């Protein structure tokens, strides 16, 4: 049978997954700390009917081979690591990371999760927690009577207590990086978990030369989704799907014609 039918079907399946990914990127365009993903495709195996350079006769070789490819497959979805825009919120417990680092948070499963969404609040004990109630690690406690909270670009958290003129330090926010952040596992709620592909977290203090970045207080990082790019990709995905379906139609019509010859 024609390979073309299956080859085109592989192209259509790949574009469906591409569109699913674009839809997720667009749906999260307003999720702060969201990092968009991109689907990578790779070509499938080739059927070599004539290998290039194989002998045509004793004296000559074929100048080009005859290799028929069998289609495409979605290879992986890679996390795009570009910096999202920082928007000023004025909330002293909103932190944005300018750099490659991730906040560490303690998940209910006692695992450490990693996120770039820096919208924190305090819980009943005064600990800094995410909107889902997961505690920032290492834990930082803001006294209930603090009148002012200041976070330096190096992660130093200091508070001013009533009746005191000098701010006192209550902790340092630490950030984590990965050898391969593109290989992190997204588990929803803006949380990533490390995998063998991403490597183990390397924890450090912000502001250094190791690429962790700096912390900006009163700011949130917007999703790094580029709406224009996503729309362009959406058009390309749709047109590519169409051209593949056109191949299915052509293969079908050729088979139909062949059947008529035999009548």
């Amino acid at each position, binding site marked *: 049978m024609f*390979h073309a039918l299956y080859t085109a079907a592989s*192209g259509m399946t790949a574009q469906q997954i591409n569109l699913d990914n674009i839809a997720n990127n667009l749906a999260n365009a307003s999720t702060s700390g969201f990092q968009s993903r991109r689907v990578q495709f790779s070509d499938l195996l080739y059927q070599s009917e004539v290998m290039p350079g194989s002998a045509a006769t004793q004296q000559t070789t074929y100048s080009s081979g005859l*290799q028929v*490819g069998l289609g495409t497959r979605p290879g992986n979805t890679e996390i795009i690591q570009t910096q999202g825009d920082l928007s000023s919120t004025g909330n002293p417990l909103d932190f944005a990371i300018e750099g490659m680092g991730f906040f560490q948070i303690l998940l209910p499963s006692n695992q450490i999760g990693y996120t770039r969404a820096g919208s924190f609040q305090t819980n009943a004990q005064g600990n800094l927690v995410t909107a889902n109630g997961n505690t920032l690690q290492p834990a930082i406690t803001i006294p209930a009577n603090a009148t002012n909270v200041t976070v330096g670009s190096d992660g130093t958290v200091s508070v001013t207590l009533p009746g005191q003129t000098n701010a006192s330090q209550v902790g340092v926010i630490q950030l984590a990086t990965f050898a391969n952040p593109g290989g992190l596992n997204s588990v929803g709620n803006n949380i990533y978990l490390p995998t063998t592909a991403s490597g183990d977290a390397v924890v450090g203090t912000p502001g250094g030369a190791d690429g962790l970045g700096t912390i900006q207080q009163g700011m949130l990082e917007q999703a790094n989704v580029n709406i224009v790019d996503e729309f362009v990709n959406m058009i390309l995905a749709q047109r590519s799907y169409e051209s593949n379906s056109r191949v299915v139609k052509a293969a079908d019509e*050729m088979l139909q*014609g062949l059947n008529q*010859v035999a009548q």
Partner: protein
Amino acid sequence: MDSGYYAAATALASRTQALDTIANNLANASTVGYLAQHNVFSSVLAAAGSPSGSPVNQAINNYGILSGTTLDMSQGAMQKTGNDLDLAIQGPGFFVVQTANGPVYTRNGSFQVSGKGQLITSAGDPVMGDSGAITMLPGPVSIGPDGTISSNGALAGKLKVVQFPAGTDLTSAGESYYAAPPHTAKDSTDSSVQQGMLESSNVNPVAGMVELVTAQRSAEMMQHALSMFNAEIDKTASQDLPKVS
């Protein structure tokens, strides 16, 4: 026997093979670093080697077959991604990747860093530098046009970029990898590496659709030819021949 019948059948078979290549190009229109394949048709003489007799004899025994596929080596469109480890090659070069089956070459520069800190392709194979696999240093990565990789001013290595003499037979190996005959890869002098960009496949969808329509219509013509031979032979065999006796 009617040699034209076999000529038409051969041509029809070659058009269906051509459709397979066209389908593969269109299916890989979104594969980064994919090089489009072109079909090469050629004619074979049914009685190759023997003297070709009259020109008429030569014409009716000349069959069209799909003899090969060649790779389109033209530059694909550059697509900005912003990822520091996305690299595109401007010019004829290829990155060198070490696989279990020896070195392969790719223009897909969507690289990552492995858990062990090595620069790898999205399929997980190490990317080669001038002195073997490249171990990345911590910190932001900057890659120069000559392939020099540095982090915070410290040198991590230099990407090996090679090119092939015109006419080298590259073999597609899947995963946007290409294999080449031994000793053909030479250090590329006229390629530059662009950081934060990827090269889209160089498939031209317009040309692809035109080839698709051509292959389809050409197949239809061959089908008509076959039908006519069929009808003629049928007629001769079932209606005319019995009348002789």
